[in-house]
């Protein structure tokens, strides 16, 4: 590794901030997706179907 002595805290800080913000975004987006997937599965387990799928039967 190259010796980064100059302003190391700012460089590390900017990468950490990026990691934190983008990481939070990734986690939130994925969690939202799984929550919706689960809710849809629960509703379909109750026997509810979308109108377009009922018509196919």
């Amino acid at each position, binding site marked *: 590794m*190259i010796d980064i002595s100059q302003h190391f805290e*700012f460089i590390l800080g900017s990468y950490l901030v990026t990691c934190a913000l983008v990481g939070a975004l990734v986690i939130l987006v994925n969690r*939202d*997706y799984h929550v919706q997937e689960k*809710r849809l599965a629960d509703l379909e387990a*109750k026997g*509810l179907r979308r109108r377009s799928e009922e018509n196919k039967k």
Partner: protein
Amino acid sequence: MSKNASIEPTPQDLGFFSRIAHPGYFLQWSKYWLTPLTIITVVLLAFGTYLAFFNSPADYQQGDTVRIMYVHVPNAWLSQFCYAVMVVASVGSLVWRHPLADVSAKAAAPLGATFTAVALATGALWGAPTWGTFWEWDGRMTSTLVMLFIYLGIIALWRTFEDQARAGRIIAVITLVGAINIPIIKFSVEWWNTLHQPASVFRPDGPTMPMSILLPLFVMFFGFSFLFLLLHFISMRAEILRRRVRALERRNAQRLREQQS
């Protein structure tokens, strides 16, 4: 109105573009993209970070702080690109009334806000050692801040509407109004900035950048762009599912009411 919206033509009757943009069909084909996109994104970002820290020289003028550029510039680019995506989607929802266009516009807004926030934060951390201050009322930083306000306003607006189909079309109007205004805001802010302080601030876009600095920049640039694509896909899928959940919940409530009466 809501009854008509839920009757969708089957994918087979439509042309190529309408077929890939059909919400149900989108859910099918985008599923196969998620894993490859994840792999590409992770590899590019990991390789880019490696290059940024271990395999690129310090700039002769700014020293090691140039390494901040590798995260700052891709995010600054995405902060504008996300808005461009929203503008295209808004035209789609106003002209063709396409349900997937609404979904795309809605999914892009939080992504754009996050990338803008990252661009601002890394810009401030870059500014501290090079300008000697975290915040400079410099033309670029100021207009990026305004951009963040616009994103947050649009996100707040999405959250206040009950009827998401109506929200999509109304927000499309304000997104287009914003698109006309953003260049004017940028111009006015830069003009205001030159008025109040002579251009002494350091500009990161030097004409010549050596290949050793360009390479990590390119890798990170594509890494973050693929990350946007991946997250956009996942958010769009989540949004389609959310709309289905809502529709089913409505039907459920309706059915319960019918059973009671």
